[in-house]
């Protein structure tokens, strides 16, 4: 065990799933920051999160249509990432402990969540950005 205090452990709803179902649940968990059925979450943060996510999605769509500059889409993505930290701390306040293929999760501190969201969104953002740039839609 790499954690001394077992009270720090948190198990998400899908934590006991196995195989493909667990992988699919993990993927969904990475992409969907909001709480699922039966999970507590504050309505105001959920609502604001949805609104900002729609705005960020529109920003990506505008970028895909070639109507948003590279700097603007990076700014939008950064802004959304900041809010995603708040949304996740409210709705899914846990991070993986140990290897990605493991089933151990722990309570996320603010720094844990910043690290998680920034790293995940860097990968997602870079993939989308490079894709758009390769298609010649976004120019730098």
């Amino acid at each position, binding site marked *: 065990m790499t954690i001394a205090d077992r009270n720090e452990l948190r198990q998400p709803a899908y934590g006991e799933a196995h195989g493909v179902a667990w992988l699919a649940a993990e993927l969904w968990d990475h992409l969907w920051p909001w709480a699922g059925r039966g999970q507590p979450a504050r309505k105001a943060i959920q609502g604001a999160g949805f609104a900002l996510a729609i705005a960020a999605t529109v920003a990506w769509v505008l970028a895909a249509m070639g109507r948003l500059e590279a700097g603007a889409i990076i700014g939008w993505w950064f802004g959304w990432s900041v809010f995603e930290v708040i949304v996740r701390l409210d709705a899914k306040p846990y991070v993986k402990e140990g290897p990605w293929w493991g089933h151990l999760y722990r309570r996320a501190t603010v720094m844990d969540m910043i690290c998680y969201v920034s790293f995940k969104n860097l990968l997602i953002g870079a993939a989308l950005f490079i894709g758009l740039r390769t298609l010649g839609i976004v*120019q730098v």
Partner: protein
Amino acid sequence: MISLRALRTFAPRFAARLGAGIAALALSGSALADTYEVKLPPELASSPKMCDYAPCKDVMPGATHFSERKGQPPFVEAYRDEAGEQKLIGYVMLSTDITDIPAYSGKPVVTLIGMDTAGKFTGVKILKHSEPILLLGIPESALIKFNNQYLGKFVGDNIEIGKSRPEENLIGLDAITGATVTVIAQNQVMMVSGGEVAKQVGILKPVIRPQAKFPPAGPAPSWAQLVEDGSVQRLTVKPEEVGLKSDGRPYMDLWFGYLNQPTIGQAILGKDGYASLMARLKEGEHAIFIVADNSMDSFKGSGFVRGGIYDRVQVRQGGDSFTFRDLDYLNLWGISAAGAPSFTESAIFIIRGKSFSGAFPWKLVFLGNKIDKETAAKTFANFDKEYWLAAKYLEGGRPVVVKPDPTWLKVWKERAVEIGAFIVVLLALSAAYASRDKLVRRSTHKNKWPVNAFKYTGWVLSIGFVGFYAMAQPSITQVLTWFHSLLFQWKWELFLSDPLIFVFWIFIIVTTFVWGRGFFCGWLCPFGSLSELLFKVGQAVGLKRFQFHLPQALHDKLKWVKYAVFFGLLAVSFFSMGLAEKLAEVEPFKTTFLVGITNRSWPYSLFAASLLGLAIFMERPFCKYLCPLGAALAMPTTFRWFGLKRKDECTSCKACAKGCGSLAIDAKGNIDQRECMLCLDCMVFYYDDHACPPLAQERKRRTKAGQPLTPINGKGYFIPIHPAPVDKKKEGAAA
């Protein structure tokens, strides 16, 4: 140990002084940046009178006047008045007129080069560069000194960076320590620029290649077949590659091919067209065709005037370039091959240079201008595509062609032993760390040599070999460069040019995800190793009573400073990479390893010396509170796969937390992996039945009860003693 009150007073002052020091460093750096990102007059790149905008006399001593730009690629002639007559004494060229080879920054070093009529370099002057390493770490005078090595050397000589090898006719130039990539690029710029002009003016003679022999024409292939076997090639330039906004079309979309080959020529032109073309060509002349469709611009060039040069396309074979004038142009009315695309612009160009051979590979080069979005300045950029006839179209097949290694590969070959040794060291230390469970079991809290032998070896090698000898200290500037490259333009060649840094980074990325940043920071970072080694030496020479660590509460606040530094640098880099590079001087790495503490101006030396001096009394102050690289690596450490072990009792027992030099064990007994340097001291405790309180307690209890001390299991406890179940059969037999 120093009192807490003194520490509380000292720490904020220390932080404030560090901040002021960093600001002073950033400001003082600008004084060294004479040509760094300097704004050049736009006419320099476009005006026929180049020398009105460039100090041509500086690179061509004795010249009294200069011609307008001429030739392709352009150069100017330098003249001297002698007895009322003008005598040609040499040539002056602007490197960016000829080549767009980028240096470490990804941008070319704009260089003015003078060469006399005998092909010897007479002067070299840097007009503009974007090299961060020359901004602060290494004075520009080093690049000037490097360039002066070319003076008097012949353009046709085999000049490379490194040692001279007379047996190979190779002239070596001394590199600039710490700026290897920059000088390798600069050498290419010098030799390509000088070579191009020397060939135009007849100083260098073209290479004569054996001419191709073709088999008789076969059945005419379709367009698709021609494309498939490489007889027709495509060169596409995207708008963003020349700094233009996309309108859905490529900036340039060219199909091209070689027409002298009978099967291909007849497929493209038809039998009559091919015969007519061949009848027009003299011996040793060659024809190629180019068609373009739906492009944003013309490959012939809108500025082309009769009698002039087609300045947008040329053919290159080896070191020889072939440009086209109006007399080299023929109309191409149509393409016979079935399935050929429509086109809006077409041409047949005749290559008249005698050195060209259809049997050898050649390139069609599109010469463009890239527009800088911020300054609207145009810089030269070329795009090329290789063409080589398939073996079936040549009698006897393709000749053997030995292509020169790319520059990065030459560097890897030259440093193969160093690279190999470095990889072995990294793998050996990784193997040692992977065996940490065995090593810590062999150690005790009083004798940690089974672990420390490997760790100290890592420190010594990283300080001596990686830091001072190979100068491969990883830096936050590399992270910023990668981040920008990932988003904007990734060039493998750029990163491969420095093999040890490249290997080190792959190692760092892998080990950070497997074990966390602690393995690099704690075992292999040259500066971190030097810091902790100084701390250990301080301990050994009797300074232990002066050594201290900050109170946990203060440490828990100050540790965030490094993250602020990292995010600050990242944010600044989006607005100005140059400023971010300056601010990255918060890392004392350049001062310590690249330039040397005694070789830099006093603010840098004082900063690095202060950090190292403080490290004698406080364990790794820079790593804990300031290092942006450590912060960048700490973030993914959140997801490291394999952490250090803890027991349930660690929540209440503070034994190993008390000895944690990294202050990484919190009040609940959990290890903050982002702060942990993986020194393994706590893991030694974990298995030590004389140090770990729960183990020691159990040991004493068993000893008192006369029970055996069973081995300690992986969870850090003695294997429980369970009474063996009584074998009833045996019991019965005995009865």
